[in-house]
């Protein structure tokens, strides 16, 4: 094989990495390079340095170390039986690329993953070496996200956590039979075992830091995971329930949902269709309801269609829930507790906080609420305000068309 130059390798190994949804650079500790040592900084909030035409944020240099792999997972472009061009970066090439992009303010840092070559331990060693060199040889203070390999030695995984801000292991598919079918070499037990070990390591170091300030930090931005949506038989209800379990058991920071999209060299066992992007979007919204709006997993699942277990695609899950549990409305913006206000479709966390503050001093009218939200039309049927009562509105059978968004063209090339 002819030698590939770094730019050609980058083309192949970035292309191979784009099916990982995460590009987050947020949630880590604040660091900077003031004082004349090293380079880089992290704020609490991540920065998206560009957006691709797929609407996704480009925050990190997201690449694979190599796209060669000894596994044969059907959904993966890099599986053993695929005919894609293979390439492999050396650890130093990745380090140099990261530094030259970072210095030009193209990125917040690096998200490094890899196909499995030779053995899980060998692969993990290479990944750790990149992070070590960035941190130790170059005093790099930017963000590092490392994908860890479930079967790798615990000591290697611990090293990864010492250098990285975030570590992740993908559960890949929401159901065990799905994983068995599509990723025959992977095991749900081993993946979850690795996530449990990671959680333990994160909790232990956090404990140690409370007692000794000199104790090292370990993955301060926590761990995350990703599930592929639309490649196995899981319904939205299954996925929401699975995500809730993962958040709960492994204290995950984030669960990412990746709508399965056609890949070059696809395996014959996968859907040949446009990725279900709207479904993915509704799952993210459901996830937000659990994380920021105090919905129990069962409540989110109740917004799904009881027969099919799927979330409605035409309206968001919060509105779907409200239309289903109309007896909980209308909510009086001048009196209702925070948790009830959070249930009102169209009221976000910020708007609810503003309402709670403002109403201490005066009674809020519909116009006031309108100034705090994007669309008062969406909120109106569900609230009582000074001088406003939604007469009979919440009892109307035809409420949905009144509050549901007008059907837009959701997909550019929809048939």
């Amino acid at each position, binding site marked *: 094989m002819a030698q590939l130059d770094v*730019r050609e390798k980058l*083309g*192949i190994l*970035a*292309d191979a990495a*784009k099916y990982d949804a995460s590009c987050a650079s947020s949630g880590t500790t604040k660091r900077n*390079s*003031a004082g*004349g*040592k*090293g*380079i*880089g*900084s992290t704020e609490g909030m991540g*920065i*998206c*340095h*560009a*957006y*691709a*035409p*797929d*609407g*996704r944020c480009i925050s990190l*240099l*997201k690449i694979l170390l190599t796209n060669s792999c000894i596994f044969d997972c059907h959904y993966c472009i890099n599986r053993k*039986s695929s005919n894609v061009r293979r390439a492999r970066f050396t650890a130093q090439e990745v380090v140099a690329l990261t530094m*030259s992009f970072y*210095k*030009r*303010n*193209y990125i917040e840092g690096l998200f490094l993953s890899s196909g499995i070559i030779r053995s899980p331990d060998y692969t993990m060693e290479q990944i750790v070496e990149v992070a070590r060199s960035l941190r130790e040889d170059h005093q790099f203070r930017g963000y590092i996200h490392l994908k860890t390999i479930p079967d790798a030695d615990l000591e290697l995984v611990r090293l990864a956590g010492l250098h990285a801000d975030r570590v992740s292991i993908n559960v890949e598919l929401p*159901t065990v039979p*799905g994983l*068995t079918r599509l990723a*025959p070499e992977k095991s749900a037990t081993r993946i979850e075992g690795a996530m449990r070990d990671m959680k333990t390591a994160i909790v232990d170091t956090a404990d140690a830091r409370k007692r000794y300030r000199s104790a090292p930090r370990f993955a301060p931005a926590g761990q995350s995971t990703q599930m592929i949506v639309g490649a196995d038989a899981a319904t939205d209800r299954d996925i929401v329930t699975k995500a809730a379990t993962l958040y709960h058991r492994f204290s995950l920071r984030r669960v990412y949902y990746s709508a399965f*999209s*056609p*890949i*070059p*060299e*696809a*395996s*014959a*066992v*996968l*859907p040949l269709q446009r990725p279900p*992007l709207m479904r993915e979007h509704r799952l993210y919204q459901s996830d937000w309801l659990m994380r920021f709006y105090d919905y129990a997993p069962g409540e989110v699942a109740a917004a799904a269609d009881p*027969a*099919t277990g799927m979330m409605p695609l035409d309206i968001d899950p919060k509105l779907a829930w409200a239309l289903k549990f109309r007896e909980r409305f209308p909510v009086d913006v001048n009196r209702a507790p925070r948790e009830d206000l959070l249930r009102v479709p169209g009221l976000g966390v910020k708007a609810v906080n*503003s*309402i709670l*503050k*403002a109403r201490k*001093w*005066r009674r*809020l009218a519909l116009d*006031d609420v309108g100034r*705090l939200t994007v669309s008062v039309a969406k909120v109106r049927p569900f609230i009582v305000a000074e001088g406003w009562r939604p007469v009979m509105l919440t009892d109307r059978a035809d409420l949905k068309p009144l509050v549901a968004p007008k059907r837009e063209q959701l997909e550019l*090339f929809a048939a």
Partner: protein
Amino acid sequence: MGIRVARLDAPDDFEGWRDAARMLATERVPPDRVIWQVAGHAADLFAEAPPSIDPPPPAPPPAFRVPKAFVDLARDVVLHSDPERFARLYAMLVRLIEQPRLIDDRADPARRRLDEMAKAVRRDIHKMRAFLRFREVADDGEERFVAWFEPEHHIVRANAAFFVNRFNTMRWSILSPEVSLHWDTETLREGPGAVKADAPDGDPIEAVWKTYYASIFNPARLKVGAMLREMPRKYWKNMPETALVGELVAGARARETAMIETARAATPGGNVEGAWKALREEAMGCTRCPLYKPATQTVFGEGPLDARLMFVGEQPGDQEDLSGRPFVGPAGQVFDRAMGEAGIDRTAVYVTNAVKHFKFEPRGKRRIHAKPDAGEIDACRWWIEQERMLLTPKLTVALGATAARSLTGRTVTISRERGRPIALADGGEGWITVHPSFLLRLPDKAAAEAEFARFVEDLRNAAAYIG
């Protein structure tokens, strides 16, 4: 009371505004009696008027207090490009002295307006951190980086600390129309505004960065609106990668179609049997709809995986539910007989059902067949799609209305659609005919025979079609 003129040193002079506002407010000067001027920007009637309040005498401690939240808000709003910003802030300050609670009232229109201005400023600060691009310049063999940025608001100075903290060991300059910043790894120097031509016009690494930008984009997920919302065009001119957006968007459809076409052309290969077995295994634990609860087991399809003809029935009946195999009950026997008469080898076709669990109503000791509803059919359609994807049959024949709905996703009148070919999304063809159980239910013997012959005729045509 006469008009008072407050002079500020620079467009982002927060300290100047605060000192003047404090003094004016102490005297309770009404907002409409104050004119705010920025040095060098004062092209108004009073530019030459004698100063009426400055230079400020050592200010007495103000006879009022304002909440810290307001000071933070003002710090942001002062950076806004709106010429009225100083006056708006002062007007709010005067109201706050009378009504301190106003600070908590984000629904107040004037407060709201200030919130929006602060938000625009913070967004501009954030976008500068995100979209500013350094270019390397040769400078005595030492690395030096220069960037050109045109902010919407007066934020460059306010943003300096971020760049100093991040690129502390780099030598860099940020040029902008109003002010320039220069960092030499130890001190920050301010210079006059610059023009774009003062900045370098390229950097060889940009080609590598563009390769990354083009490769990380997934053409199957085109969402141009989402990109534009976060990366408006006004920032594009100084971001090298945006030169690619046009061609990436234009080529996306072709790239996606090519991926789907290659996938379609891919022969299932050696793993099709393994994939089918795994799929069947997965289906055994299906809980996509509630029918799995009373049923004995999932009844999956069966037949050779290279079959070019696939039959889709309604759902397993009592006997299928117990044996776990499709088409073995009374209707299955009618089907077998018709297949024999049409001269089709029953073992060479793949048979499956639209719904894979038996739906019934118990009546005494018997289980009476119940028709699956649209939700159940739709929930189960996933399995049919997977089976069809593995087998890619040339022709799929839907037996009865349930199968027809599963195949087409809509409610179908058999008599109207029978014999009319339907192009399926994956390239195969679909036909619709009656379900064999329909033939069992006809009371009139002559009619039953005629319908049976018609069914056999449909099967014969199907056999002829696949050749």
